[in-house]
């Protein structure tokens, strides 16, 4: 038995893109183990999400529908994930807020070892080793799990999205109703989603991040640059803490980890915890007044300049380049 179960992330009846990264992991790891992978899709009505999941090359898609799964709560999801996961060698999801919340709870339920936020899986025979960043990305640990079932979350930016491949059969799985106390003592009061026209940070090809230096002009200066590049907007922790940017834009060890093709660090000094969130980017551009800022030690292209005149000029010139 060396099969893998992917726990899909579903929002408003649709499969979230985060799921693709866990599928990419499963494709690699199941091939190495000589097994297959299945995708578990849970919610109150998941036929659309299951249909999407069925195009990702899985041996099968398992759907579990129950009215109590309409909104996600770890206390309600974990029993079913664990019960179905028992038939697999690896239970995997993506290390989004959903995966980070749910998967350790599933690991606790299965009395299984959990490897969090991994960036690579290495197979040697039928043994899997998980490479994961530690110390704010300043070291990689090679984790091995001693329990029969492994629970794993994968870093989205380290596993590129899976392309559609074939059609998988969809079958119904059993809903395991939570017993005990926890599920009855938690309720979701509200979920405020910020709708954005921009691509999601973790998925964007280009990310423009700003630091505290932008002050109240954070959006005014950076929005035009994002628009011309089709980029996602990010921020340093300092900018979020100061209230110049909402906290879900934070890029760093404790925020989002991104690895786009092109990353702009505007007015960001480059604290260790910020670098942990972006140094996997392919090309890094830094604009900062302070020529000694640590960000220049990782930037491919550094411009020592005042950002306030520089960024609008950059927008103008990129527009000209794109125009022809």
């Amino acid at each position: 038995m060396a099969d893998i179960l992917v726990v899909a992330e579903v929002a408003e009846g649709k499969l979230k893109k985060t799921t693709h990264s866990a599928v990419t992991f499963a494709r690699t790891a199941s091939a190495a183990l000589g097994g297959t992978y299945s995708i578990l899709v849970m919610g109150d009505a998941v036929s659309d999400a299951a249909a999407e999941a069925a195009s990702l090359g899985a041996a099968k898609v398992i759907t579990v529908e129950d009215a109590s799964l309409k909104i996600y709560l770890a206390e309600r999801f974990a029993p079913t994930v664990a019960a179905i996961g028992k038939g697999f060698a690896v239970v995997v999801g993506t290390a989004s807020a959903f995966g980070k919340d749910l998967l350790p709870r599933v690991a606790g339920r299965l009395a299984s070892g959990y490897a969090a936020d991994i960036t690579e899986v290495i197979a040697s025979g039928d043994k899997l080793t998980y490479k994961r960043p530690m110390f704010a990305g300043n070291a990689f640990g090679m984790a091995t799990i001693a329990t029969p079932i492994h629970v794993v979350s994968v870093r989205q930016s380290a596993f590129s999205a899976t392309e559609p491949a074939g059609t998988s059969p969809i079958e119904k799985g059993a809903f395991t109703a939570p017993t005990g106390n926890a599920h009855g003592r938690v309720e979701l009061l509200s979920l405020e989603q910020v709708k954005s026209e921009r691509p999601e940070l973790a998925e964007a090809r280009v990310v423009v991040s700003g630091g505290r230096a932008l002050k109240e002009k954070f959006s005014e200066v950076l929005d035009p640059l994002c628009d011309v590049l089709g980029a996602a907007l990010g921020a340093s922790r300092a900018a979020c803490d100061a209230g110049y940017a909402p906290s879900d834009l934070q890029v760093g060890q404790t925020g989002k980890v991104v690895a786009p093709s092109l990353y702009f660090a505007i007015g960001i000094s480059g604290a260790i915890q910020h670098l942990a969130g972006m140094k996997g980017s392919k090309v890094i551009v830094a604009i900062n007044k302070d020529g000694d800022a640590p960000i220049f030690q990782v930037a491919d292209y550094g411009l020592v300049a005042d950002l306030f005149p520089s960024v609008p000029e950059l927008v103008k010139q990129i527009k000209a380049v794109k125009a022809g």
Partner: protein
Amino acid sequence: MKILVPLKRVADPDNANKVKIPAAGDKIETTGLEWKPNPFDEYALEAALRLTENGQTPKVRAGEVVVVTFGPKETEQTLRAALATGADRAIRIDTTDDKLDGDLVARALAALIEKEKPDVVVMGKQAVDGDSNQVGQILAELLDWPMATFAATIKEEAGALVVSREVDGGVATMRVKLPAIVTVDLRIVAPTSVYSTKTAATFKYNDGVRFAALPAIMAAKKKLLVEIKLADLAADQALKVEYKAFQAPPARKAGIKVKDVTELVTRLKNEAKVL
């Protein structure tokens, strides 16, 4: 309200780029780095103190804050510092640092909680050395308690906490009835993040965590600190996750400095080919 706050010491996170991996790659060398409390655990302690006081009178504790750590004798420094900051009592679970994983820590904490019976466990969402973000969730499952992870705000109600959590693309607000686990995120120490039922809604805290005054540091030496053997809490000490090798991340070379925006755009287009 009685709150348990687990604390972990970590190699100075502001110098995390100074951790070294010896040629054999069998361990992480943190020699020369100072031990500091995990920042998220400091935030958890601050949140626990705010939940057990009227913000106007922070020296008066309404309830009890118990801090606990795992490690050798020297980790008592971390506990003493927490006692000086305002915690009432401390427990050190005696073990070496390297014979632990998230699962064993969660199992030992669960056993301790059976004895201590706190109303809430407030803890950091992750330790910034291992960066695993797991113990709170595993502990909640072992105890069959509800949990609210990555908390940005906490408001106490009678017998419950209302917690707002930062999730992808928004904020989820939940109510957990006690006893419960809360793991905290960075913004839990903002001026209006945590309110006990005693603190006026108009009250604003100073930003960040509080610091111990000298008399409190002296008084902390007299506060109760007990030692418990790890074996008394967890008979099975087998690790589920082990690290047998480590690698340094690929070094990223500093690139070039461009003289102006025009050169930058030209190089991005012609050299990096990303425009």
